[in-house]
């Protein structure tokens, strides 16, 4: 379970203050598949970063599995990220100098699994995304869709309870995007909670739950709402 209450996050630069999140309230239940939409610059990535413990917040409360993350040190945060959270990024973020096997291996190494367990998990994760036969290849030798599938395998390999994805299909064509979403649905079906930021309304439709972020605040929307319309409304405001 993931619960945010009145979370605030403000970026200060010399010239301006940006309130990226203000009084952000959200509760995500075990097993949810949440699609996050909203106009550009509204705070979606910030929300995901705070949720994934990549960024700290200024005010409010955030509980992950019933435990407040406020005041945790770097080590504890790293451990939580490592054990409970899997990340999928818009630009895949594979490490170019490592082959697929070693890429998926990265979080498992930090986890401290022994080599037999790592091997078994890596193979299984790559199996799941259908790339088990290309373990020795390097990211540059793969298409974008394949790269994102490796990234998903990497996120999955540690059996995280939460999968956070920031525009996972943003760099993919619609065919590939659809394939990735199929994969995510399958993972969700097996019990992993997924929060996915997307700007594609048709993909958002496929999540159980839709939330809409605007000016750093969140509104719940019915699944099936015409998000395109919402976006246009926002543009007019």
């Amino acid at each position, binding site marked *: 379970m993931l619960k945010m209450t009145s979370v605030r996050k403000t970026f200060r630069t010399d010239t301006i203050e940006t309130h990226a999140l203000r009084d952000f309230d959200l509760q995500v239940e075990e097993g949810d598949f949440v699609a996050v939409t909203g106009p550009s610059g509204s705070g979606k990535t910030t929300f995901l970063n705070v949720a994934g413990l990549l960024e700290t917040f200024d005010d409010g409360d955030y509980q992950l599995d019933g435990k407040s993350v406020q005041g945790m040190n770097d080590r504890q945060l790293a451990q939580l990220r*490592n*054990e409970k959270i899997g990340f999928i990024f818009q630009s895949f973020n594979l*490490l170019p100098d490592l082959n697929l096997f070693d890429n998926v291996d990265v979080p498992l190494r930090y986890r401290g699994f022994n080599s037999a367990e790592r091997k078994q998990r890596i193979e299984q994760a790559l199996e799941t995304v259908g790339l088990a036969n290309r373990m020795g290849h390097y990211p540059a030798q793969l298409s974008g869709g394949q790269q994102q599938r490796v990234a998903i395998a990497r996120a999955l390999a540690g059996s995280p309870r939460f999968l956070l994805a920031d525009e996972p299909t943003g760099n993919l064509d619609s065919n590939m995007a659809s394939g990735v979403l199929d994969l995510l649905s399958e993972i969700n079906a097996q019990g992993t909670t997924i929060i996915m930021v997307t700007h594609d309304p048709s993909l958002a439709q496929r999540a159980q739950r839709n939330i809409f972020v605007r000016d750093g605040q969140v509104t719940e929307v019915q699944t099936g709402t015409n998000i395109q319309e919402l976006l246009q409304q926002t543009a007019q405001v």
Partner: protein
Amino acid sequence: MNQIGPIFRALLRNKVGALLLALQIALTMTIIVNAIHMIENRSSMMARESGMDEANQFHLMYVGYKDSFNERVAVETDLLEIRKLNGVVDATQINSTPLSGGGWSMGLTTTPNSQDGTPVSLYFVDDHGLNTLGVELVAGENFSQTEVTYRLSNDKQWPQNILLTEAAAKNLFPDLTPAEMIGQTVFIRDDEPMTIKGIIDHLQAPWVQWSNVNNVMLVPQRGLWNANRYLVRTAPGERDRLMREVEELLLAKRDGRLIRNVTAMDEQRDDAYQDFFALQTVLWVIVTVLTLVTALGIVGMVSFTVNQRRKQIGTRRALGATKGDIMRQFMLENLLITGSGLIIGVASSIALNIWLVDTFSLPRIGWHYLPIAMVVLVIVGQLAVLGPARKAANLSPALATRTT
């Protein structure tokens, strides 16, 4: 520490960069090892003792130029007067001194007309020679006042008795103890016999680079060659004053001679080893600057890599790496590169040394230089990455999503 595998494989992907750094480390080690070896070699030569009481001695040279200059009278009265000066321990006429770079050498043999002589350098001194030089008798006796004779320029005869350094005597009589060497006969100029009257502990020949530098023979003669030298030994702390006083004393005689080169013995030492010291300094500068260049090169390379890999570092952090993990990754990467460089370095250090031994007849390096240099360079490398690695560790995990 369980990341060596992937780091190593990643390095292999980035061959050229890693290879360049490794080569640089290898060459750095090669230069450092051999330069320090040369420095040490010179240091050990400079550390050899002349056998004298250098801190309290000086010498000067006189050259007579007027027919009226009566050298024999002058030398006798000069030495008497100098010895009487307050603070003077003793004084002697001597043709040359250790560390001076100019002198006289001859060959001695144990049988007449033998082919292989033992080269010795000669100092002509009187009965005050031992005390003025500050050397000790190990066996036998000093010259007596009556056996000191005068020697003219073309004289070829050699006196009855001589003193030898233990090193020279050991060359001639390897099997005898110093006490047994007393009374032994040695031959000079093919077949002229001389008797060993005493053995002194240690005294150097004038040439510091001579292979027989410890072979010295003292001859009980005063030279009447119109130009010669006095050596004066003083009480501690009195030397500088006496250098002026003795020169003034001699100049005041106005007896048709020049006084030149009033030189303190330790100044003489600095002169004798000036080139050694200079080479050492140059090598030290090279070693220091080289280490600095290599270290800064590592800092530059790693800083740049950190900048390049901001997103990767963010990604790793997002995947659960702690700050420590990131630091360790960079340190380990450096350790691997440095390590492989050092392994090449061991081979190339030895190769360069072999070449130096062949070309410049330098001694072999001691094996202990290699591990010491390796440890030092590993530490230098690790210190160099410390800064950039810390910068990397402090990068925000959010870079994973924020950078394109």
